């Protein structure tokens, strides 16, 4: 059953095919990401109405919420790649773990920093050790742990294996982050949009937020393509197809110079 369900994916397990697929997708993803990010953020930061209590300070939501949601989204993707890499020993999935980790770490850092900048004027403090803030900080440490472990072994394959295990185990943290505001008393407010009930935000503020969410997702996909391409080149540098690629590039640039 498994074999037939995922057979169509098999060609993309070949590094060369995936390298070219990512190369073809990259300009579209990046272009769409820039467009939606600009649209969502300019709309949200300049044109949507101010909040009745927080005034203009609430506008950090257009960066904070998308980066926080996709810091968790990136982690799930990384963990799925790690699982596939461990069980089926598919090398491109293992490299995808390395490709996603730094992007996710930056998303997490953005969420933490923008949250602190909002917390100071609204709550009256930069940081408080409540369950939501602490679990999101643990997520940053998980990302950093995956990056550090992957580079801590002289044998790259062993490092990736250990880092993948950490990535998979860290998934336990994701529901903790999401439900922390329901399970425990926290200073952080409950979910505004990531719940089954109607979003508790006015439509005039919701639309730019949704566009911004899409923008951060597309940027994550685009950056993953970009980084995965370079990971493939690093690990396959001695293969003939990479040699040919480099030679072809070299020839064409020489021709241009002449």
């Amino acid at each position, binding site marked *: 059953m498994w074999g037939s369900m995922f057979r169509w994916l098999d060609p993309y397990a070949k590094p060369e095919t995936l390298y070219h697929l990512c190369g073809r997708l990259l300009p579209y993803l990046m272009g769409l990401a820039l467009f939606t990010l600009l649209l969502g953020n300019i709309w949200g930061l300049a044109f949507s109405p101010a909040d009745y209590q927080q005034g203009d300070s609430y506008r950090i939501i257009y960066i904070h919420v998308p980066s926080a949601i996709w810091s968790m989204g990136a982690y799930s993707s990384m963990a799925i790649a790690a699982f596939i890499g461990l069980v089926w020993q598919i090398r491109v999935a293992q490299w995808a773990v390395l490709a996603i980790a730094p992007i996710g770490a930056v998303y997490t850092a953005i969420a933490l920093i923008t949250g602190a900048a909002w917390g100071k004027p*609204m709550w*009256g403090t930069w940081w408080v050790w409540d369950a939501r803030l602490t679990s999101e900080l643990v997520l940053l440490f998980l990302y950093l742990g995956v990056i550090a472990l992957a580079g801590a072994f002289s044998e790259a394959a062993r490092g990736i294996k250990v880092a993948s295990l950490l990535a998979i185990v860290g998934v336990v943290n994701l529901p903790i982050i999401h439900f922390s505001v329901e399970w425990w008393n926290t200073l952080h407010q409950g979910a505004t949009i990531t719940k089954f009930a109607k979003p508790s*935000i006015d439509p005039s503020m919701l639309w730019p937020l949704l566009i911004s969410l899409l923008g951060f997702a597309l940027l994550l996909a685009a950056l993953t393509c970009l980084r995965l391409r370079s990971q493939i080149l690093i690990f396959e540098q001695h293969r003939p197809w990479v040699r040919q690629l480099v030679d072809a590039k070299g020839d064409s640039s020489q021709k241009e110079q002449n």
Partner: protein
Amino acid sequence: MNPRRQKRLVAVTAFVLLLGGAIGAMLYALQQNIDLFYTPSQLIEGIGKDKVKPEVGQRLRIGGMVVKGSVRRAPESLKVSFDLVDTGPIVTVEYEGILPDLFREGQGIVAQGVLVDATTILASEVLAKHDEEYMPPEVAEAMKGIKHVPPSQLYKESDKGQQP
């Protein structure tokens, strides 16, 4: 699926489930310690099956809604006292200092301080707890009947009132 893959699948899944279970059990045991604050009813009625109440003199955080009409400011100093409520009992908080911008009656807050008697807390820090609702001022006025005046305008209006 070949036997080697199956073995790896079982090993990885078992590893994750075991560790996940261990972390889950740990969090469950620590449940009360992860709560950032007591609610007024927890403070007065106690927490959990054993109804554990905090002792007088203990440092703690209390979180609840500021009761409407309960904010009393000292005319000569920054001293302020107000009542907090969640579902039933009321707890009084005394504080000296500057309150956050979002502090107002009916707003959720979290105060850190020392329990001086069963229902009074001498706070050293007061934080505003914002709810998850976002709306423009006109919508808030229509839906909730709240006409929000920013603090800067509030003081201008009261100044005008004092100088006829």
